[in-house]
């Protein structure tokens, strides 16, 4: 447990909290680090979270009901007023972070993701390989509780089985899988952080299809980890406390303390003193804190001797479409499950670079009730029902989507925004994402290739493309800003997440990725955080 020391003499009254490890941020990556260090070391651990506790499990049925009825936020007030940046970022600042909202889709990256330069001559290789990270993928899957179906090993490599059997496919997805089997594109069940067996005291999924808020606790959210660690007396969780600056030890590059503000007692600053500091503040706030912590020794921000903090912000874009299928499906039996193919994330040798995943869902697009027919005539009561039936009796819609990776540019960048400050006057982050020129040059080829595969699938079903949208330029599952590498000239942290400039400062998870992959990223962020935790263990008191 951490120790609260007396206020420092000669300054405004300050609360001082001491521990061996201070983790800044209370999201899923913080939960992974805290769990592992609590189990494997005897270190005292403090987790500092800017937000408060959110809706307790027992109340989630009520907020779910209001979300369904009115579209209300099932995690009300889970943000901090004024603590808002510009550019794609999450606004959940709360114990559990963005993963209170998450859907829980947890594919791994493919081996190719780590070797883009060596294999395809684009972007950069990571300093680690898939084989290096694989055991931590497994560990993350076990901690979170992942239910998955083993795909073809060449596209879904793993050394051990998924912790739990997959979620069942709905009747509709079973029919859709039969259709995809007419092609040479293998599809299997998406892996999910949702229980198909009781897992760590949590329920089995109940198919209620509102996974952005799970009323049963079957979907993993990080509050479960924190509650378990708190119950075991293994961590201190300091909530509603925003870390504003990291300070160095005098005459040294080691971090001495994190200065914070207790949002309930803003006049009494809090100092967190620790031997090891871990920034687990997500893709935006991690670089932001380093930049905010500039001092005469590091005038451009901590860990930023080579000017790489905030750079290489990365993610993926997607192309989506809808396919008309000549078969009757029943959408609504289990909407939050889907089919996945990683076939084209591991494409083998390529003339021109393009990698993407494929995902299929049942959909009601084009098959929802309407109040006007195609000629603009108003429909009433039984007519609405008849029109609806006519569009669902023998045809259905599938939604298809491909995440494709964007090769990050050095100037895809998070900076401090002089035009936007929070209530304390601290400048807020501004993220100007941009793809590297090589990605821009590949865009047309990428879209053509993916559209071709959509159409091939539609043909195999005897159906047709209803529509293909414009490429979504939403930077999904973002990361970067503190990318990892062996060379300090081009990176901020080493392969373990340790900053090159400060031996007792780690950045974990999303900010450290080198490229955004073509898969939902959070499992990778968790695996990387566990790798970092292993490195920290060597310097901490043993259990």
């Amino acid at each position: 447990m951490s120790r609260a020391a007396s206020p420092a003499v000669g300054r405004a009254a300050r609360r001082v909290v001491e521990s061996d490890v201070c983790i800044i941020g209370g999201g899923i990556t913080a939960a992974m680090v805290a769990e592992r260090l609590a189990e494997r070391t005897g270190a005292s651990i403090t987790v500092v979270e800017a937000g408060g506790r959110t809706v307790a499990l027992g109340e989630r049925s009520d907020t779910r009901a209001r979300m369904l009825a009115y579209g209300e936020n099932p995690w009300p007030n889970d943000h901090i007023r004024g603590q808002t940046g510009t550019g794609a970022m999450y606004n959940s600042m709360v114990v559990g972070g963005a993963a209170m909202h998450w859907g829980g889709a947890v594919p791994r990256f493919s081996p190719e993701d780590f070797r883009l330069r060596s294999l395809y001559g684009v972007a950069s290789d990571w300093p680690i390989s898939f084989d290096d990270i694989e055991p931590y993928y497994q560990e993350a899957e076990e901690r979170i509780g992942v239910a998955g179906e083993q795909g073809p090993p060449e596209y879904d490599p793993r050394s051990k089985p998924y912790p739990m059997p997959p979620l069942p496919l709905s009747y509709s997805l079973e029919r859709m899988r039969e259709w995809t089997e007419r092609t040479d594109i293998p599809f299997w069940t998406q892996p999910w952080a949702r229980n198909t067996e009781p897992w760590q005291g949590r329920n089995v999924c109940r198919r209620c299809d509102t996974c952005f808020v799970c009323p049963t606790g079957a979907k993993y959210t990080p509050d479960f980890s924190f509650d378990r660690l708190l119950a075991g007396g293994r961590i201190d969780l300091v909530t509603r406390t925003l870390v504003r600056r990291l300070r160095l030890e005098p005459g040294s590059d080691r971090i001495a303390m994190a200065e914070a503000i207790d949002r309930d007692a803003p006049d009494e600053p809090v100092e967190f003193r620790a031997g090891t500091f871990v920034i687990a503040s997500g893709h935006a706030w991690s670089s932001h804190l380093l930049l905010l912590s500039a001092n005469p020794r590091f005038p451009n921000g901590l860990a930023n001797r080579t000017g790489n903090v905030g750079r290489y912000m990365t993610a993926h874009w997607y192309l989506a479409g809808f396919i008309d299928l000549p078969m009757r499906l029943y959408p609504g039996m289990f909407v939050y499950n889907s089919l996945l193919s990683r076939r084209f994330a591991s494409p083998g040798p390529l003339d021109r670079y393009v990698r993407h995943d494929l995902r299929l869902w049942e959909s009601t697009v084009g098959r929802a009730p309407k109040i006007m027919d195609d000629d603009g005539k108003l429909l009433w009561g039984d007519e609405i029902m008849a029109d609806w039936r006519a569009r669902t009796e023998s045809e259905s819609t599938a939604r298809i989507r491909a995440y494709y990776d964007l090769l990050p540019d050095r100037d895809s960048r998070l900076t401090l925004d002089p035009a936007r400050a929070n209530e304390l006057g601290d400048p807020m982050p501004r993220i100007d994402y941009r793809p590297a020129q090589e990605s821009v040059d590949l865009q047309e080829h990428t879209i053509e290739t993916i559209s071709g595969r959509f159409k091939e699938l539609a043909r195999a079903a005897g159906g047709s493309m209803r529509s293909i949208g414009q490429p979504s330029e939403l930077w999904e599952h973002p990361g970067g800003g503190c990318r990892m590498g062996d060379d300090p000239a081009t990176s901020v942290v080493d392969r373990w997440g340790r900053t090159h400039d400060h031996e007792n400062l780690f950045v974990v998870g999303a900010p450290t990725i080198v490229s955004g992959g073509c898969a939902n990223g959070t499992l990778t962020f968790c695996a990387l955080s566990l790798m970092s935790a292993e490195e920290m263990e060597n310097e901490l008191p043993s259990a």
Partner: protein
Amino acid sequence: MAESRRTFLKQSAATVAAVSLTGCAPEAAGARAAETGGDALSRADDATPVPLPAETLRAVAEAVLPDELGEDGRERAVRAFERWSEALEPVAELSHAYLVPEIRYSGPDPRPGWVAQLDGIEKECESRHGVSLSDLGVSGRRELLVRPLADTGPDLGAPENADHVALALAAHFFGSAIAMDICYGRSIRRELCRSIEGAEDEPAPLGAAP
């Protein structure tokens, strides 16, 4: 077929209680479920909203909801809409838009406008036909509703965003899990909390034993 749907509608309230599970929301709690929707909803504030004129609302329901619901089914759909609209809170924080840092809020309370529309249509009916809306035939009521609904576009949308109360009522019913089951003639039971086993089965025809 219509009879089995009606039987299903009658049975559904009982089934709800039977399948409610520990740690789960009741069936389609708060969903735009015509049968059960409003029950699980409550307002955080103690405000008592002005009631929607009940008779006129029911007269509108006969014009916009399917006859195949029967009188009981239609009454349940209207009651669910009333409960839903009473528990609606204006300017509530909406679900976060994905990766958009700004917080979004719902609009102002649509109910005063809906009350005025129901009063207005009643007055128009009196002046044009000399009878109350409920005494006018269904085709006459629809004629009165054509103008306010003409600009709505083809989609029903979310009821809280509906410009007109008739559209809100239709959107609330047709967006419900029960309307979907009636359309498909199957017991799909969207958003129902239940075992994952059986997901792969073709949903049973409506009215079949649960």
